[in-house]
């Protein structure tokens, strides 16, 4: 982000600086003024109308309904173009709400009977429905309240003759702050004016986070009560790299962050010319540097950041953004689109990893005492053969492009791998009978994310084409610390020597079987880890696309011989703290300008 409109002085001399921590959802640093986007409250006062006005009032309602319908359809088209079917479905739901015949009747009869202006009646009826919905049990039902609010706000704007615009549209660059951004808000953002997004709610896969990353706008979500702490016009610093938000920054804070911003910007532009270069160490050892994606259109971002393949395409979004299981055709369309964008580079599709923290209505997962040790990922797939087979068929159909690979999550040993491969073989035989083209030699990989899989990595490697270490889960299960549980967060140590040894032994086992091994977890995107991973013999690193240029910079700076030395030295330390300190020192002396040192 370039210069911001914030003057050298804080916005209010009396306001104290406040720092909040959220979840970094899209990288970059922004400094600007808050534009608070609070969803309109139903504050429309009842306005009496004359009996003679009823007819005109109802015509006004019909006209606004038609205009809103057209507007939602436009959003739907836009969503399909920008974000694909998953987001488009949100607007299908909006249309169904708008078309509710009982809602229309209630409004018409109440306007005639009570003789109030239609705006007030619409607000009253939908406001009531929203409140009821908000108090429902079941996340999916509660989410509908936000959809009703979005529909209501659009309808009210058309009733007021304001057309389809977000009210109080900013006229200068701002940082948008909202409890949660509605699908309409996020889709109609003017990215020239919005320098950052901050939301009270949401996680990494929330709608806000996904849209922010796709539009390359720095974003922090999950901030709790930010909206109650700020007003429009307040100065604010948003750090999408660290998840920090600073409201009413002191002038020294502003100076510090302007410097960080400049360094970040300088560093980013210095990476520009790395884009088309391979990730090769100065002594000629190539690492395959790939991107992790969640939505098919993110494949473009991987290419734009210089990644030459997708090492992890998380297919769960097909479930998480909707309430029905996706059909085979819909999945095929999604996978094929991503494969087309990536071709000839590889696209590794991981089969559904549902369960654990990713629950879904269409699977009917029961409440479990220990969901992370329970019914998830391949376990769900193997017990729901209908869903699994449809997904495998869709992946196989997309594989006719020749660059698709398949990967099974949460494999604990050979039983699940063999069973999953058997279902895959059945799906292939079916396609064969139906004469549907597919890749007969499709490469099959296994995620190594359970300690039992690490111990069995030699045998697993013999029965598949590649291994991919999912470090997020591997660390969680290796140290037995739920990564979502703050109480034990300090036990979740990426550089735990036990974890590093597990990676080392997995690499050895894979290489002994002549199979490549990848890293596709957070550790792959951690610059500190890069020399260590390269030194341990990792063949591929797959990470979020925005970090690719930095990782590439590290790889192109550090000779393989150095990385090997660093890895063997790191393995001699006994604690995570020692390893972290050692790696930090090694990297800092060689690459003093990396953004991790100052964000």
């Amino acid at each position, binding site marked *: 982000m370039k210069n911001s409109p914030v003057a050298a002085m804080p916005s209010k001399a009396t306001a104290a600086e406040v720092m909040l921590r959220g979840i970094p959802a899209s990288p970059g640093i922004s400094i600007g003024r808050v534009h608070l986007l609070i969803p309109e409250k139903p504050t429309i006062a009842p306005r009496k109308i004359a009996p003679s006005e009823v007819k005109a009032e109802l015509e006004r309602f019909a006209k606004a309904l038609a205009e809103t319908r057209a507007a939602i359809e436009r959003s739907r088209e836009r969503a399909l173009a920008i974000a694909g079917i998953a987001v488009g479905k949100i607007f299908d739901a909006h249309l*169904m709400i708008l078309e509710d015949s009982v809602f229309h009747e209630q409004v018409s009869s109440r306007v005639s009977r009570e003789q109030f202006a239609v705006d007030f009646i619409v607000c009253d009826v939908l406001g009531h429905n929203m409140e009821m919905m908000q108090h429902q049990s079941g996340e999916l039902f509660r989410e509908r309240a936000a959809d009703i609010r979005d529909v209501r706000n659009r309808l009210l704007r058309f009733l007021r003759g304001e057309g389809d615009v977000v009210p109080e549209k900013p006229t200068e660059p701002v940082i948008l702050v909202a409890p949660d951004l509605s699908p309409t808000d996020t889709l109609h953002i003017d990215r020239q004016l919005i320098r950052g997004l901050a939301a009270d709610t949401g996680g990494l896969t929330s709608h806000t986070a996904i849209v922010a990353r796709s539009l390359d706008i720095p974003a922090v979500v999950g901030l709790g009560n930010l909206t109650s702490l700020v007003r429009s016009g307040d100065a604010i610093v948003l750090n999408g790299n660290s998840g920090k938000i600073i409201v009413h920054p002191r002038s020294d804070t502003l100076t510090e962050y302007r410097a960080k911003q400049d360094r970040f910007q300088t560093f980013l532009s210095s990476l520009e010319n790395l884009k088309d270069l391979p990730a090769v160490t100065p002594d000629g050892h190539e690492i395959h540097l790939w991107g992790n994606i969640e939505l098919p259109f993110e494949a473009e971002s991987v290419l734009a950041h210089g990644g030459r393949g997708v090492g992890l395409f998380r297919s769960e979004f097909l479930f998480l953004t909707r309430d029905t299981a996706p059909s085979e055709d819909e999945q095929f369309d999604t996978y094929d689109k991503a494969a087309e964008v990536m071709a000839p580079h590889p696209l590794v599709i991981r089969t559904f990893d549902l369960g654990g923290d990713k629950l879904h209505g269409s699977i009917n997962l029961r409440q479990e005492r220990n969901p992370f040790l329970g019914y998830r990922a391949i376990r769900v797939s193997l017990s729901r053969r209908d869903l699994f087979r449809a997904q495998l068929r869709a992946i196989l159909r997309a594989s006719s492009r020749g660059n698709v690979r398949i990967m099974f999550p949460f494999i604990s040993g050979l039983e699940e791998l063999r069973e999953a491969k058997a279902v895959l073989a059945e799906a292939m035989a079916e396609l064969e009978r139906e004469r549907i083209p597919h890749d007969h030699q499709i490469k099959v990989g296994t995620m190594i994310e359970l300690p039992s899989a690490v111990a069995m990595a030699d045998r697993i490697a013999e029965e598949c084409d590649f291994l991919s270490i999912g470090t997020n889960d591997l660390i969680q299960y290796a140290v037995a610390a739920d990564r979502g549980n703050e109480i034990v967060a300090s036990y979740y140590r990426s550089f735990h020597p036990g974890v590093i040894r597990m990676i080392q032994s997995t690499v050895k086992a894979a290489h002994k079987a002549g199979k490549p091994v990848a890293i596709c977890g957070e550790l792959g995107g951690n610059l500190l880890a890069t020399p260590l991973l390269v030194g341990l013999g990792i063949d591929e690193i797959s990470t979020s696309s925005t970090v690719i240029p930095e990782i590439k910079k590290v790889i192109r700076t550090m000779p393989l011989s150095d990385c090997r030395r660093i890895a063997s030295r790191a393995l001699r330390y006994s604690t995570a703290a020692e390893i972290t300190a050692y790696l930090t020192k090694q990297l800092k002396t060689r690459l003093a300008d990396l953004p991790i040192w100052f964000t």
Partner: protein
Amino acid sequence: MIQKEFVLMNRLGLHIRPAAQFTKIAAKFKADVYLIRDGMRVNAKSIMGVMMLAAGYGAKLEMECIGEDEEQLCAELTELIENKFHEE
């Protein structure tokens, strides 16, 4: 008036798409139809009303059909519910 009780056996329960199928059928008839769950009674011609029940898999519901074509209405809705909203 026809009264009927049933248990939702479709995986999604009365979520937006199943609810839309339900209200679409209900809208074709003159008779009124209500759904009752845990003492909450909603007009089942309204998609928002139906979703307000937050009726998931296994939920017990009562249905009331009232009006001249109530029998046909009840039959069609029962068929939809029994066929699990053609979800699979």
